């Protein structure tokens, strides 16, 4: 029983990272922009958030916890929006291919993040690895009474605030896309930009905003990874990138519905950590067990494509650059 709770806990931690990523990506894809730069954008959010508080903590012996959180989140969000802006400018204004541009963004941002993650401390004159203990503790702080509750409740209420924020953001984006008139316009842009344009919707503006704000949300996933998941340090073995790709997969898994992405994300997370909770695995079979989340993703992709249900189809204009004079 306690092992099951531990697995669920690990799954929710892992799932939260990709939930941010996929919620942001859904927003962009609903506007017709297939942003494969999500791993890169999560990298940007993670590293710039970390850098922001790193300098703040370095210059203030007694950092204010609330300020730490605000600085980290603002830096992460803005950096990710900037990443989204690069992608938007290239694909929307200059009409480059979205897939190749997304990959280029991931290469760029991965290099940027791992470079600064690895050498920031040395550049700033310090020794060893970068670490922001105070901020990370602030991010991971749970409700004070959570520990005294029965185990299941203690687990469910014992996370840092960003876990709950991820669920709230996913539900909000879902409501926004499906239940508001702006969301309706957004979907129209993604389905058929030509028609939307004729109806007087500002296609370019919608595409830019959806992609950039979506990128900002994805970037928070990178921040959560750095602050909660790796506890305020930088790991340069490409962890964020893996999770970023899973976030892209989760968009399809959820059928472009963030509310379904919530449990999908936790399921992915549990599959990812399952090898850790199965007793007596040799290292070899452990490596094989780690395939599980990717195998399941493939199975889901295949099943979705075989069933071809209308509500699970991607936006019709996904991946196609819009040029008004070309129709």
């Amino acid at each position, binding site marked *: 029983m306690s092992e099951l709770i531990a697995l669920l806990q690990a799954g929710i931690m892992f799932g939260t990272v990709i939930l941010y990523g996929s919620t942001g990506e859904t927003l962009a894809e609903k506007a017709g922009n297939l942003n494969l730069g999500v791993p890169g954008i999560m990298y940007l959010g993670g590293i710039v958030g970390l850098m922001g508080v790193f300098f703040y903590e370095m210059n203030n012996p007694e950092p204010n916890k609330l300020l730490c959180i605000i600085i980290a989140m603002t830096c992460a969000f803005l950096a990710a929006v900037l990443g989204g802006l690069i992608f938007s400018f290239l694909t929307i204004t200059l009409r*480059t291919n979205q897939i190749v541009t997304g990959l280029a963004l991931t290469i760029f941002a991965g290099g940027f993040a791992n*470079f600064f993650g690895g050498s920031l401390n040395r550049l700033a004159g310090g020794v060893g690895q970068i670490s922001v203990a105070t901020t990370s503790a602030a991010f991971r702080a749970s409700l004070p009474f959570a520990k005294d509750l029965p185990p299941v409740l203690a687990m469910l209420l014992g996370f840092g605030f960003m876990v709950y924020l991820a669920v709230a953001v996913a539900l909000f984006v879902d409501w926004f896309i499906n239940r508001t008139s702006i969301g309706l316009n957004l979907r129209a842009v993604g389905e058929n930009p030509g028609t939307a344009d004729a109806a007087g919707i500002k296609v370019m503006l919608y595409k830019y905003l959806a992609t950039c704000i979506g990128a900002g949300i994805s970037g928070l996933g990178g921040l959560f990874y750095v602050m909660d998941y790796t506890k305020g340090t930088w790991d340069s073995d490409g962890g964020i990138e893996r999770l970023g790709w899973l976030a892209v*997969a989760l968009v399809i898994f959820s059928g472009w519905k963030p509310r379904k992405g919530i449990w999908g994300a936790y399921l992915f997370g549990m599959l990812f950590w399952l090898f850790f909770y199965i007793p007596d695995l040799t290292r070899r079979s452990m490596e094989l067990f780690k395939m599980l989340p990717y195998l399941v993703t493939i199975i889901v*992709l295949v099943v979705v494509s075989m069933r071809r249900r209308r509500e699970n189809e991607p936006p019709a204009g996904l991946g196609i650059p819009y040029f008004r004079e070309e129709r």
Partner: protein
Amino acid sequence: MTTDLKHAEPFIRISKRGVPFPVWKAMSIRALALLAALVLCAVIIFAIVKLNPLKVYVAMFEGAFGTNKRMWVTIRDMMMLLCIALGLAPAFKMRFWNIGAEGQILLGGIASAFCMIHLSGYLSTLPMMLLMFVLSIVAGGIWGLIPGVFKAKWGTNETLFTLMMNYIAIQLTAYFVALWENPIGSNTVGVSNARTKIGWFPELFGQAYALNVILVLVLTVLMFIYLRYSKQGYEIAVVGESLNTARYAAMNVPKVIMRTTFISGAVCGIAGFLAVSGASHTISTSTAGGRGFTAIIVAWLAKFNPFAMILISALLIFLDKGAIEIASRYNLNNHVSNMLMGIILFFVMGSEFFIDYQVKFRSGKQKEVQACRN
């Protein structure tokens, strides 16, 4: 009337270029973009290490071509990248987004490493080489074919499918690394057959990497002919441009997709063979090392022309080696090379816009012309 015209014409007007754009103009736009990117990179390097940007490029050149050995390593890596790009070209030309080169390389590598480790007492050099070559083609090809089959039959999204196949291949490699671990407990395979050199590329003309160059250059010519002059190459182009046209022309689209994905995976498998047998003589989860992604950009920027790919992979590898040299001289980590590569990609890809489209600013003259017409 004039007040209306003020609003009639937007400040910036974009239109597709009607007449074919002269090649020299297109090339000079690309060259300008590249130059701008290199200047920006120099500024960034200067900001980090405070070194004269020109000296930076001299140091980068030394890093890539400074000694005879370095030059050959640079050439070897260039051939590797070129080989992967050659493999991706047919798939991407068909608009099949094969992001799975990493996995296909690893599978080719696993096949080669298997031969080196398990068959080294039984075969002499030539049959061993041939067997490794064939097995890596089959392994990589099948890894590419799997997503191809599902795409052909059910239209399964290949971007994510191939991507997930990468991670499965990585775990499979990790499994084999654990299986072949040498020495035990090191979690690496170690250099295989270091003494006997069985399964290693033989030296040609006194150069360890000459065979890599020959193999890949032959492949380059073959791929050029295949894509440009063969019937299958034509089918790939038609399927890529328009599925409906291909169906109307009675092409067997599923067959074309499956055949092309197999070829694409197979050539990437050869790249794995090059990496294991022709370069590192060992295998690890980082044998592909992100080159499967870089190669996509090589193939794309070259517009799938194999000869243009030679130039682009040379440029990217030069940057990579140069940035690593800068990083090691200044005790920084070498991820900086990916950052610089990204910047160059943004500029060169963005510049294509100015080749395909015309940008006109609002000018007084045009207004007069329109006024006359009215």
